[in-house]
């Protein structure tokens, strides 16, 4: 999980919102400006995810709930990526849709996220979770402390994940 990320403007441009006294006017971005965005905060925006944005509620992603955050959900980033292939190099504008969420065939995954390791990461994480839950009946929390961040380039947990596992 990468909680923060930065883009540098390679030319002078404007962003549609963020300027003016109420932050609703366009904002000027000079060439060379670092634009940092906080994915951790974006994913907790109540205007996108509703009043329970802070709650851990997997069901919010069920299609029936109709949640479509678009660019408000950026776990694997988005934007143009230079494609290196046997054909001449080209740029593809990618939309940061929930590739894993939609049941698209594998060949359709590539242009959706900017992260080349997206599929690998999700399959690796899924496989690990499945195998652990097959092996263990339950898990006991052994740490009463609050979650504390350990933030470097990725976001880990300062207190670790101290548990006891109960075999099947």
């Amino acid at each position, binding site marked *: 999980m990468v909680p923060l990320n930065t883009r540098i403007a390679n030319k002078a441009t404007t962003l549609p919102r963020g300027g003016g006294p109420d932050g609703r006017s366009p904002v000027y971005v000079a060439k060379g400006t670092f634009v940092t965005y906080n994915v951790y905060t974006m994913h907790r925006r109540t205007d996108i995810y509703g009043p329970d944005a802070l709650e851990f509620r997997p069901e919010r992603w069920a299609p029936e709930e109709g949640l479509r955050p678009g660019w408000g959900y950026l776990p694997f980033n988005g934007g143009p990526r230079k494609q290196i292939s046997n054909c001449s190099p080209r740029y593809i504008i990618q939309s940061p849709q929930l590739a894993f969420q939609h049941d698209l065939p594998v060949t359709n995954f590539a242009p959706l996220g900017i992260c080349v390791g997206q599929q690998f990461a999700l399959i690796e994480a899924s496989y690990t979770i499945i195998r652990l839950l097959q092996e263990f009946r339950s898990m006991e929390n*052994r740490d009463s402390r609050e979650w504390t961040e350990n933030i470097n380039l990725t976001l880990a947990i300062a207190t670790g994940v101290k548990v006891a596992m109960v075999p099947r």
Partner: protein
Amino acid sequence: MISKIPRDGSTIDLQTLFFQLTLDSATEFLFGESVNSLLSSEGSEQQSFGRAFDAAQVSIGNFNILGKLGGYFAKDDFEKNCKIVHDFVDKIVYKTLKEVDPSDSEKNLVPNGGRYVFLTETAKVTRDPKQLRDESLNILLAGRDTTASLLSHTFHVLARRPDIWKKLQAEIDDLNGKKPDYETIKQMRYLKYVLTECK
């Protein structure tokens, strides 16, 4: 990894295991052979590599926060850790450079049984050992720490939310204990929601 988890109810830090697991799987993909940190003993070269890689990142984070002041912040340790990481990767890089040589048709055969190995493929494009090391470490960081942190957060939540554990296990029990393949994983909806919510 599963065999490293105690079955007698004693406490274990899963986060440590997840960072070892993803170090092992990422290095297998990058270098063609895993460093097997989960299997190696405490203090082994493999575990020191993982530890130095983590510690060097903490230093980089501190340098970023402190800016110019970072120059006073435990530079010695940082350089020591970088050297451990670089030496470890360089050994593999030089071995690969010896094995892969696009100008030599004899050596251009695909090693590793036709499997994609990042370093082997990159060595066909550049012969610069420093670039090969940098590209490998870049992918290692991107492919390893991210997944380990996703798994850690998932289990951090599951340890505190038995209701979610129960729903997840119900879906997983539909496999009847069979190890999942790619297609099966793709079809597991609740697992997908949990991971999407965790990110």
